[in-house]
């Protein structure tokens, strides 16, 4: 077992009042060839998901797992199989011992299609956090720009 970095692309939606930086979680993982295995407790602490008889569960939500044998390997949960079970894209770099797990396209799509503007909290130049939902009651023009 050794250190592994996991970047959670859902962090901003799970906890909108908390800044997304840094989004990286450190956990212990076992590497076996291309397979990265994380202890179930570490995965639960990092991402909130737990494997139960009815599937992968987080809060009130459970997702059935079709291929348990791919998901649970020895004492660990295979990270790529976990991502597939939740239909979440995984960028994995085994030699660098790091991965980024994005939100699924289905989740982002349904959120946008609801037309409820997704809430977020971001810092200004002084580091003070501003949350979109603080602007309720006012019209908001959200402008994305950049120095590039």
């Amino acid at each position: 077992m050794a250190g592994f970095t996991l970047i959670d692309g859902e962090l901003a939606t799970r906890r909108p009042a908390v800044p997304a930086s840094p989004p990286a979680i450190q956990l212990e993982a076992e590497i076996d060839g291309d397979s990265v295995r994380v202890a179930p407790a570490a995965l639960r602490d990092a991402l909130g998901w737990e494997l139960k008889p009815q599937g992968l569960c987080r809060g009130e939500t459970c997702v059935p797992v079709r291929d348990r044998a791919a998901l649970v390997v020895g004492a660990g949960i295979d990270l790529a199989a976990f991502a597939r079970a939740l239909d979440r894209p995984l960028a994995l770099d085994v030699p660098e011992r790091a991965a980024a797990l994005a939100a699924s396209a289905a989740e982002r799509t349904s959120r946008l299609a609801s037309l409820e503007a997704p809430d977020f909290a971001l810092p200004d130049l002084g580091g003070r956090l501003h949350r979109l939902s603080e602007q309720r009651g006012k019209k908001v023009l959200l402008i994305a720009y950049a120095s590039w």
Partner: protein
Amino acid sequence: MALDRSAEDARPYIERARPTHPSVIDTEHVVADLYHVINVPTMVWIDEAGRIVRPNDAQFGTDTFTQFHGKRSEPYLAALRAWVREGRGALDADTVRSHQLLPTRDTQLARAERALAWWLHRAGRRDAAERHFARAAELSPGDWTIRRGSMPIRGENPMGPKFFELAREGVPRYPMERLPPDAG
């Protein structure tokens, strides 16, 4: 909301503008992900109840680059003023939905690759970062928050020859462009 790699990159613009509104920095591309932003500038109208009433739209506040992109700012600004002052021009739900650019598995995987690349870069692992920036670009070639946004990070000039190569492929488009600014 600046899609920049640091507050310091955005600072000169914010300080010059001296805005009276919140001006924030999205170094981790959180809002780019939530709203499926694929280029800058992108404008979204959100009403008093927190509902999107005009989806992602590539519009400009000035005519500084009209020669390049062909859009004039005044029709859009007039529509914006009409919305703010008179409540005119908010689009109905069906129209908003039919003009939303929605993410796909590949565009979301590209975001994961970009996030990994960004972390690796900051951890000093430049070669590994470069591989993942390249993979992100392959997966979502139409997302300039990745392909152009990563240029300053990778030591490339975002206004230089690589940018002009990129532009020759075509500028990213939102479905919203099909509507004139003063429709609705």
